[in-house]
């Protein structure tokens, strides 16, 4: 159950098995997309209602990433990706806020399976190298042998360690919290897990922020000057 690759396949889409976590993610994407569509359909110069809220979010993210990543144009280029990470991760963390959700199919948070978090981390890793190449061109390869060629294996190891640690951090936190709530629910069925779930609300938000912040700082490090 714990590291199950396809723990309950619902149906097959061609050769690809689709399990309940994938369906949960489709639902999340649908909800987020609907929100964005409703807010940005027939936009006006003077925003009202939902457009106001969405504009506030977009402006906040641009300012926030501009501050974290130092360079304005890089922050503007990658802020959409990073805030999508944030929204997706926080929604999928919160989708498991039902006691014992770890045992109910369809209500498990998708981020408690490490296939999902590894996918997110791989997107980050590819974006980091894309950002490096698009900012520095072929000079980007030089940072693999800085400060001197003897450091090549260490630098390569670092490139593997970054996505690995992103994967394990998100997956371990969410999965561990789910497991602890499930055990507590087994020991004392009523009211006792509530205290821990209050903590889970905070933890879900913090993990989403941490994943986004670390992705932002990796991108800033590979695309910024002077590495």
């Amino acid at each position, binding site marked *: 159950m*714990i*590291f199950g690759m396809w723990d309950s396949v619902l149906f097959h889409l061609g050769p690809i098995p689709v399990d309940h976590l994938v369906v949960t993610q489709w639902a999340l994407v649908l909800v987020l997309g609907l929100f964005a569509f409703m807010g940005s359909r027939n936009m006006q110069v003077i925003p009202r209602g939902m457009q106001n809220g969405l504009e506030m979010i977009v402006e906040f993210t641009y300012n926030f990433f501009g*501050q*974290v990543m130092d360079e304005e144009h890089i922050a503007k280029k990658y802020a959409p990706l990073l805030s999508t990470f944030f929204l997706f991760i926080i929604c999928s963390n919160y989708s498991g806020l039902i006691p014992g959700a770890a045992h109910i199919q369809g209500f498990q948070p998708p981020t408690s399976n490490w296939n999902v978090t590894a996918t997110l981390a791989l997107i980050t890793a590819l974006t980091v190298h894309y950002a490096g190449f698009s900012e520095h061109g072929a000079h980007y390869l030089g940072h693999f042998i800085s400060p001197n060629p003897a450091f090549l294996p260490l630098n390569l190891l670092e490139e593997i360690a970054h996505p690995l*640690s992103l994967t*394990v*951090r998100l997956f*371990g*936190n969410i*999965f*561990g919290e789910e*497991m602890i709530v499930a055990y507590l629910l087994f020991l004392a069925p009523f009211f006792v897990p509530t205290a821990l779930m209050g903590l889970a609300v905070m933890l879900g938000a*913090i993990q989403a*922020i*941490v994943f986004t*912040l*670390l992705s932002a*700082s990796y991108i800033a490090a590979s695309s910024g000057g002077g590495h």
Partner: protein
Amino acid sequence: MSIAIGAGIAVSIAGLGGGVGMGIAGGKAIEAIARQPEVGGDIRTLLFISLAFIETLTIYGLLIAFMLVGKM
């Protein structure tokens, strides 16, 4: 039996080190913010990043514990 003890040791030693590290980092950050409240935002961001790095090591221990329990 020995697997259960191993899982317990893995998670407790990892938690011990991570806890000490997080305590030092958090305490120093609070000291810095108390001394210079105007750079609080920057320090908070850096604190979160460093706490995330510390926490990863603890989570590695937790992961090993889960793998051991899964083998039991």
